[in-house]
């Protein structure tokens, strides 16, 4: 039985995986299909999107019209269970009393983790993104190059299914021909921006998202993913055939019960379970990695939340894929005479250099988009077009007071209304009655919003450590966060908000958000974008990094970190696709090392 309870686990597994999201899911997929016996610990409950997803529910069919509440912090239909910015019984603390130095930490407690609700934006890091320090002198280089990860990006894209186009733009990599699925058509507001942004020299192109715009080719892809392994090919093909193409309705944040988008629970875990090589223990809150006398990790100690008792699983290899913050917490709590400062922490760098994406938004109203003939713009449940960072040359030429780029995501279309008034008070003014309804109809679809997703440079003031006093309800010390944006990020936000105002102006619109905000007010708090990476950086030297280029900790050779904790930088590209590509590459390495008897 693949989903098991404590006490039913095999005596010793090949691999213990902590976490079931993008990193843990990819890890389990690759390892089990290679024949290794794995056990996966998930801190939340089991979750089955096939029957638990809110698909066509209208806001009037949900409590409080679906709006966010302290219980469901991104709204009722959002695919997040038992968590959000706060998890009952599992607090975290802030080192500073100043709100601008706080870190917001999003944690679901469910199988599949954040992959159930994420935005599905799947952008590759480009060549510059692996060698940022070499390029501009800031931050850290990765010990690997784009060429090392390129084949794994391709594999992941083929497996999960990613729509998009190849544009040949600088540091915005193309995928090999035939890998990407067809991009969806542009919507009215997206096409209107595309036309007018051209005047400003800003490219608007198809975004890459993990949504099937047509069914995956189950007859040919599995053989490319698993050459020479017909058993794996058959399992993967069966799993692919169970996924339907997008039917162009419902927001991806709800998850998807036809499996048209990627979530770990619909793409990675079903084939992994089908191998018979995976046991999943839900409600298992990892406490620490245990260490053998030989200096190698030999298992994980966890709280069984169903009984409140401590339990243990044993394995020859341990993989942490619990999210940057959780993996840091587990490492720092794994203290032993060999590792008094926490496991794999001889460098003292576990917890350091946590990063998020830089976020800031500007909204506007575009008269040309008023009173458009009604038409369906639900589309692929998320954005179709976006703006990649387009000023690499100007930036390296020293034209800006910030060193890294941002991409631009849009909202604003004729998306599903409900839960809030479609007509802002200042547009409605004193209107009521039929005049209010006419004004609401006039303005519907004419509101636009532009959001920057930018690269933060790692700094010494943004890190996580154990709180010396506070423990969670299981008695486990919790994380205390330190956070500070540097001028780099603030200057970027200044550039972004001015650019967005110019875009709105170019479309003949008016900026609606406040324009007198300083960049310090406009920037989203740390963690708010939910792109937390870093905390156990990979590097070329054991003295100044936690892992090597294989996500393998320097100090404990059978301990791997397979979430975003090893990221030495956080490019503007959303981290999920890179987490998966790295996890697949690491899994291949583990298989190879296991065969050689090196673990």
């Amino acid at each position, binding site marked *: 039985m693949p*989903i098991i*309870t404590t006490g039913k686990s095999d005596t010793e597994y090949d691999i213990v995986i902590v976490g079931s999201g993008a990193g843990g899911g990819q890890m389990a997929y690759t390892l089990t299909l290679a024949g290794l016996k794995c056990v996966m610990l998930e801190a939340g*409950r*089991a*979750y*089955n999107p096939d029957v*638990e*997803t*809110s698909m*066509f529910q*209208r806001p*009037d*069919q*949900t*409590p409080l*019209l679906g709006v966010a*509440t*302290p*219980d*469901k912090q991104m709204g009722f239909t959002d695919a997040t*269970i*038992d968590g959000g910015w706060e998890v*009952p*019984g599992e607090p975290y603390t802030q080192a500073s009393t100043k709100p601008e130095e706080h870190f917001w930490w999003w944690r679901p407690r469910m199988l599949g983790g954040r992959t159930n609700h994420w935005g599905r934006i799947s952008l590759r890091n480009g060549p510059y993104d692996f060698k940022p320090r070499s390029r501009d002198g800031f931050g850290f280089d990765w010990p690997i190059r784009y060429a090392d990860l390129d084949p794994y990006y391709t594999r992941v894209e083929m497996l999960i299914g990613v729509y998009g186009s190849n544009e040949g733009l600088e540091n915005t990599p193309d995928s090999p021909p035939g890998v990407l699925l067809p*991009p969806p058509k542009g*919507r009215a507001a997206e*096409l*209107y921006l*595309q*036309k007018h942004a051209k005047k400003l020299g800003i490219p608007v192109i*198809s975004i890459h998202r993990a949504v099937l715009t047509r069914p995956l080719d189950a007859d040919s892809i599995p053989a490319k993913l698993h050459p020479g392994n017909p058993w794996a090919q058959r399992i993967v093909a069966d799993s692919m055939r169970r996924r339907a193409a997008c039917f162009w*309705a*419902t927001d991806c944040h709800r998850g998807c019960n036809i499996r048209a988008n990627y979530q770990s*629970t619909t793409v990675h875990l079903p084939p992994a379970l089908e191998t018979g090589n995976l046991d999943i223990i*839900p409600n298992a809150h990892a406490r620490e990695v245990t260490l053998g006398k030989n200096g190698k990790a030999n298992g994980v100690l966890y709280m069984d*939340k*169903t009984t*409140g008792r401590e339990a243990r699983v044993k394995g020859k290899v341990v993989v942490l894929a619990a999210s940057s913050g959780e993996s840091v917490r587990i490492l720092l709590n794994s203290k032993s005479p060999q590792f008094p400062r926490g496991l794999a922490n001889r460098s003292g760098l576990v917890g350091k250099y946590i990063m998020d994406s830089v976020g800031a938004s500007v909204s506007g109203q575009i008269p040309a988009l008023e009173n*458009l003939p*009604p038409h*369906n*713009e639900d589309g692929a449940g998320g954005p179709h077009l976006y703006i990649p960072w387009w000023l690499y040359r100007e930036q390296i030429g020293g034209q800006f007071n910030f060193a890294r780029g941002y991409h631009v995501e849009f909202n604003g279309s004729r998306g*599903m*209304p*409900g*839960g*809030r*008034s*479609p007509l802002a*008070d200042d547009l*409605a003014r*004193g*209107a*009521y*009655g*039929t005049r209010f309804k*006419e004004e*609401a*109809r006039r303005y519907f679809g004419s509101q636009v919003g532009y959001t920057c997703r930018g690269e933060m440079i790692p700094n010494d003031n943004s890190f996580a450590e154990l709180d010396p006093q506070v423990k969670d*309800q299981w008695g486990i010390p919790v994380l205390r966060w330190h956070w500070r944006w540097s001028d780099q990020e603030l200057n970027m936000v200044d550039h972004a908000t001015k650019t967005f105002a110019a875009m709105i102006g170019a479309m003949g619109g008016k900026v609606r958000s406040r324009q007198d905000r300083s960049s310090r007010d406009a920037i989203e708090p740390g963690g708010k974008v939910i792109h937390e990476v870093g905390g156990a950086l990979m590097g070329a030297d054991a003295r100044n990094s936690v892992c090597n280029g294989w996500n393998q900790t320097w100090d404990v050779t059978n301990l791997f970190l397979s979430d975003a904790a090893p990221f030495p930088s956080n490019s503007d590209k959303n981290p999920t696709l890179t987490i998966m590509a790295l996890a697949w590459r690491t899994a291949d390495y583990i298989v190879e090392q296991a065969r050689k008897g090196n673990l």
Partner: protein
Amino acid sequence: MELRIAMKTSQANGIRDATNDLITSRLSRRTVMKWFAATAAAANLPDPGAGPLAANTPVTTPPATKGYGTDPDVSGYYKPGDFWALTLTATQREIVSSLADILLPGDHLGPAASDLRVTDFVDEWLSAPYPVQQKDRTVILPGLGWIEEESQRRFQKGFNSIGTLQRHAICDDICWPADAAARFKKAAEFFVRFRTLAASAYYSTEAGWKALGYVGNVSMTSFDGPPPEVLAKLGVEQTVK
């Protein structure tokens, strides 16, 4: 299938639920404070120290204290009253209906608010256990009381008994805070908040979608982008082939 079996096991576990309840009540107080402060700042609500909006706000059943929890079945279909009891009095509900129908009447764009259960949604909202909604309750219930008193004062009849023109006469005085006379300022702030609530509910329904011009939430075999007349109106071409 296996996933479902495991889920039942965890939900059936009483120890875990009891522990979580304790923690939830402790944590939510902190959340309450945070949300309260944010809402008050954002909504520019009337100063609570300035005295009651209406002299006779009727005593009502207090709102719920327990929400739907952090793990409700989101695949269900719900209606107001499913998670907590509705608490408005019959009179309050009638005023909500009358006022909502003045704001969102039946016309060429669709049915009246009361035909779309807006009254139930407003009641559900004001009866909810969460901070944002409880804050609204402190604005809306006194406002409903004010409307009733003002109607009695002007027309010697309750708001539900006066005619449409008389209702408009009251609404015209309070429909926009910036234009309202000093003595109507607080009532105007109530009016705008009530309008937001009523419109939030109205446009959450299929008929409301139609009134707005939203088309969607139906499965399709292809997505073709905006139709030619939209592209022509905007002077753009479909660039994604």
